[in-house]
């Protein structure tokens, strides 16, 4: 199976739970961005194993458990 064929997990944020502490944005800058109004946006879905792994750690480290990978 080539990289492109791999079924990738998508990360999402529950904005009702997110408190914009910025932990994820500091860990994976390519994926998580805090905009000027402190709203977390997913700038880029993980598309490599390495990014998937780092995003998984960020999901686990979110202090408010506002992120999920599915």
């Amino acid at each position, binding site marked *: 199976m080539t990289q492109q064929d791999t079924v990738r997990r998508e990360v999402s944020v529950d904005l009702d739970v997110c408190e914009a502490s910025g932990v994820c944005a500091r860990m994976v800058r390519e994926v998580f961005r805090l905009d000027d109004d402190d709203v977390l946006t997913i700038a880029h879905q993980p598309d490599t194993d390495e990014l998937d792994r780092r995003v998984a750690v960020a999901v686990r480290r979110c*202090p*408010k458990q506002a992120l999920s990978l599915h």
Partner: protein
Amino acid sequence: MTILEDQPINPPTTLDLDEINLADPDFWLRPDYHDALAKLRAARPVSWHEHHDSGKGFWAFLDYEDIIAVTRDWEAFSSKHGIRVHHDAGTGQVRPGTNIMIEMDPPEQTANRKHVSTGFTPRQVRKMETYVREQAIRIVSEFERGDEIEFVGDIAARLPMEIICDIMGVDPADRPHLLDLSNRTLGDQDPDYGVDPLEGTKATLELREYGVQLAAERLENPGDDLFSEIARIEVDGKPLPKEQLGGYFALLIAAGNETTRTAITHGMIAFSRFPDQKALFQSDPVGLEQSAAEEIIRWASPLRHMGRVLTHDIEYRGVRMRTGEKAAVWYSASNRDPAVFDDPFRFDITRDPNLHQSFGGGGPHFCLGANLARREVWVLFQELFARFPDAVAVADPVPLRSVQVNGVKSLKVRL
């Protein structure tokens, strides 16, 4: 060579496993306490500790991953019955509950916290950038190169105090008194602050009473400060009772004060012990601001523990714990866990990521002021070293006797 440079960072402990008692305030004054924590974590990641005076005790969690699990499992490990392991009837140290968010569980806690958290988001804190910097410059500009100062009182305590008091709209004339009350509140195990252990409780109550009166004043005459907003909070259509408003005030003043002051002071000690890291920071104070602040806060571990109370019987890592027993997570241990931090006893301002637990292990109570604290720390060191590039500690720090905070009472620094 500075006075602190030749001291061992982590001397091997001379304590046997059974002699390690986290409930004993004198344990935390030992130079070998970090190694004792490492020894205990390796042998017994979950262990029982008892206060000498009351015989009451608590479960201690020292492992980084366990702390995440415990902190997030608020249903088993509740905050509702208090968060201080050392406050027990038998020890003479009892605090009436504050009944505010830090001593609540979800969903009640969630509803309360959201009213306050909006004041501390990254955006709100970014808006304070110029203001925080002006305060830091004002404080360091009072001194001249070569001055020998008492760093804690002259600099470290002042920036966080001024900022939290401005945020809360406290009259400048009242601030020294509030700082004194805040010191007594957290210094209740140190004979320097109050020989009578009830002094701490008295100070807490006085701090709350000040908050109750200020709230009444702000309800009548609202300003644009955070406390005017808190005073107007309604949960389920009802205003907060005045005791709770007093509790919020005391919490924000004490939390905004002691922890950041302690981080800044330990940062100064660390920069004196690791001159290479100071030189590195001075070479790129803006590029390294975030990682340096994070490492200073990890290194300091200002709050040693947070307490919880078990709501039901559980078995964790083969240890049986019962309903009503206390448990505490110890950040002093987890922030030096070699499984998480490479060479944890090296002060390294380039660590990235630096997922220390000084702001908690996550979950409902994760430190609300984290973003403000980080900014205060980096701005202070940028401005301090810009004016005083040779600033260095010239005597050993005088530690606070406390199981709760890694406080420093005084630190002589030559600017």
